[in-house]
């Protein structure tokens, strides 16, 4: 492999933003006919690097070489014309247009007077779709396709040029296993045609299944490249986080209190079915499963954002009907949502105002807001949660992910809830702050809160939860205690492969 010229080579790429060195001299090369995994924690610089490659950002230093020719790319279209093609994680398709129009968006074949050459458009698109072995035609409206098929359209876009390098950014996030197999075939096909492939994914099993080499980024630096066959998960993880991952269970055991929340046979349409569980005071219940397994929807139901179609919810042994977040909050249920910025925080407001948002009604002095009381609440939780901010006047949008999450948690703690639901507590938070948030959740349980943690990260549920509910396709497939859980069983339970357990699915 070494004697060939790399399809794409990066040399000492540096990119800084005010206050951050997002990329600090990154160099690596992708050979033609190679699948090269790029891994790294969130915030390690992967997306910045991809944007540099895609012509969205210009590097401050260093250069990009395509087949050893130094190249400057200033727009995504220019990058594509030079043979660097992206398959984005977030679909960027126009739903109201046909598949063919989307595939050639911005590059529609033309005839005289600016007319579109429809015949050529449909013929060319059909040829590409043939290669992908998909079941839809060029004239299908993209809005009518499933997510997986939309992903295929995104991939079809990449095939309109003879690509020298193709970059896949978390392509399997929304695909089923069968669809993944098709995707991997497409990748193998591209590889056989001599394209260099950069494959970004968090899923270890995919990395070890399809890639030839792995490069790892950490804090904007390239920490190493290994041949996939010669390495293992542990070594890659260590490169990613710079130390061995602490997978040890939480050993602290404390007395559990009464059942704070019980759910019996709760269903909501086809989102989830016959879900029953209970959470005691002082206990952390973990909900583990794939995206779309119904975990978030259960949380939304408990918080009054959805109405269940059947089943009941009991708080402290009393039946409760919850129809709005307002009622949920009044009954002591709090939700730290999955999408912190979109659902949890008002980014344009300062720290104090965000912290007291749910209780500002109770903090009045006559018709006015009692700002003094607000500041003292903020100070109290800033100290208790160790929130690092220059002061309460700081806009929440300027804080780091970890500190933002603490603001959301502090917001709910200041309401003295009995049940705290935390959906994906550490999404988009750096490794150091992750441990802090985990400890915080353990502390809260020790203080007598009933805590529900929803997570897609296995180490997280293993580390944090006393009891784990595994979910698959809207059902709880198995329940584990921290003593009887093993990684293997957990994986089987969330893939519908559980061979024991009360309510298993076929």
């Amino acid at each position, binding site marked *: 492999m070494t004697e060939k010229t790399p399809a794409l080579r990066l040399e000492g790429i540096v990119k800084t*933003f*005010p206050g951050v060195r997002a990329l600090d001299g990154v160099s690596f090369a992708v050979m033609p006919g190679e699948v090269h995994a790029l891994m790294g924690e969130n915030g390690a610089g992967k997306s910045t690097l991809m944007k540099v490659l895609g012509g*969205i*950002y210009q590097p401050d230093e260093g250069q990009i070489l395509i087949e050893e020719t130094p190249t400057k790319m200033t*727009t995504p279209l220019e990058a594509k014309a030079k043979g660097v093609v992206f398959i984005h994680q977030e679909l960027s398709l126009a739903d109201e247009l046909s598949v063919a129009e989307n595939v050639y968006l911005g590059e529609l074949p033309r005839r005289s007077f600016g007319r579109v050459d429809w015949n050529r458009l449909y013929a060319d698109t059909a040829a590409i779709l043939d290669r992908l072995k998909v079941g839809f035609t060029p004239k299908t409206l993209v809005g009518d396709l499933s997510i997986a098929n939309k992903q295929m359209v995104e991939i079809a876009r990449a095939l309109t040029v003879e690509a020298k390098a193709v970059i896949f950014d978390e392509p399997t996030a929304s695909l089923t296993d069968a669809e993944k197999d098709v995707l991997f075939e497409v990748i193998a096909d591209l590889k056989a045609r001599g394209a260099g492939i950069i494959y970004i994914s968090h899923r270890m099993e995919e990395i070890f299944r399809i890639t030839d080499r792995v490069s790892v980024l950490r804090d904007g630096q390239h920490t190493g490249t290994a041949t996939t066959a010669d390495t293992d998960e542990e070594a890659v993880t260590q490169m990613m986080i710079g130390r061995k991952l602490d997978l040890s269970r939480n050993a602290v055991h404390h007395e559990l209190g009464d059942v704070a929340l019980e759910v019996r046979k709760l269903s909501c349409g086809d989102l989830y079915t016959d879900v029953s569980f209970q959470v005691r005071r002082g206990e952390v219940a973990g909900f583990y499963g794939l995206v779309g397994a119904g975990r978030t929807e259960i949380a939304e139901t408990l*918080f009054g*954002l959805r109405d269940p179609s059947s089943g009941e919810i009991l708080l402290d042994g009393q039946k409760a009907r919850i129809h*709005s*977040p*307002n009622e*949920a*909050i*009044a009954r002591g249920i709090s*939700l730290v*949502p999955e999408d912190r910025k*979109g*659902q*949890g*925080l*008002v*980014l*344009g*407001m300062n720290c104090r*105002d965000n912290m007291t*948002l*749910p209780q*500002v*009604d109770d*903090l*009045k002095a006559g*018709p*006015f*807001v009692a700002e003094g009381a607000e500041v003292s609440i903020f100070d109290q939780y800033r100290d208790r949660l160790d929130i690092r901010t220059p002061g309460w006047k*700081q*806009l929440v949008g*300027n804080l780091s992910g970890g500190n933002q999450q603490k603001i959301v948690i502090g*917001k709910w703690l200041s309401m003295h809830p009995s049940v705290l639901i935390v959906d994906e507590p550490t999404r988009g938070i750096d490794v150091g702050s992750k441990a802090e948030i985990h400890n915080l959740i353990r502390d809260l349980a020790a203080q007598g809160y009933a805590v529900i943690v929803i997570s897609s990260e296995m180490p997280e549920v293993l580390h944090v939860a006393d009891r784990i509910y595994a979910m698959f396709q809207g059902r709880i497939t198995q329940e584990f205690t921290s003593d009887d859980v093993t990684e293997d069983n957990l994986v089987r339970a969330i893939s519908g492969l559980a061979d024991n357990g009360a309510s298993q699915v076929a």
Partner: protein
Amino acid sequence: MQAGTPSTFLKRGAIWGFILFELIFFSVAGEILSLSEKAFMDLDNMLLLFKQSAPIGIIAMGMTIIMINGNIDLSVGATFALCAIVLLDSLTWPIFAGLGDWVIPVSWGLALLTGVALGAINGMIVWKTGVDAFIVTLGSMLGYRGLVFMYNGEQPTSHLNWTLVDFAEAQFLGLHTATWFLLAVTLVIWFVMTRTIHGRNAYAIGDNREAAVNAGIRVGPHMVINFMIIGFLAALSAVVFYSESGSVNPNDGELYELWIITAVVLGGTKLTGGAGSVISTFGGVLAIQLLRKGLGHIGADTSTVNLVIGLILIAVLYLDRQLNRKGAEELKT
């Protein structure tokens, strides 16, 4: 925050800088062209300017809340006209004949109540149907205007009550009645937006509606209250203006919504909600009024006023966009 300081200052201060520029420009231009023997910054002239700002200014305060909240209200002009008719017509109703001048507070009350009711209708429709406020109030703008025409056809509705006229033309500490109303409304709404829970929630909902819902804020009722406030203010504006003029044409208040939105946007309130200031809206109202007056002062055709304001509005929004850009790394769109 460090990087934002100069641009924040510019943004907050821009409208006042613009007003200063207008004052200087029109004074100097007026001198050079010497079309009028009176100076532009003549005291009487300025007092009149405040008074003339009042009808639009009072409603603009309500529009500021609505827009910070993430909505818009296009029906204010029609509400204004309808409330004016209620005011003037009810003064002559036979059942109030025995009241003498006590009919005035009754008619005022009826007009204000009409405004609140019309606002409540807008708000309830927006809340209960979930249709965008732009569409709902576009509909009610046409509907309310239709009611105005149904009332008296193309004919003006007139009634002069001299007690009322005396009150409206009175000057206290040199300022006209209308000016006092404008100042009072500005002050009250400023307090509401900066010091009360309602104001705090308006910013939160406008900035991130989902987060506000998740914090247990009842977004629907909150919006209805805002529409009732702007309805009340549209009525108040009508009451103040028509107490003096005593005659309302069915076309009165047309295009008010656009002038008002222009003033609010000039003052820096975001169309998408979540940010804005009542004091800056006050500046926006004065800036527009100055421009209209100033162009007249230097002898420009009144029809050029619209052209100039339109250009300035676009220039201001472009400037705002430049100041708000996060830098070169912002995505090109």
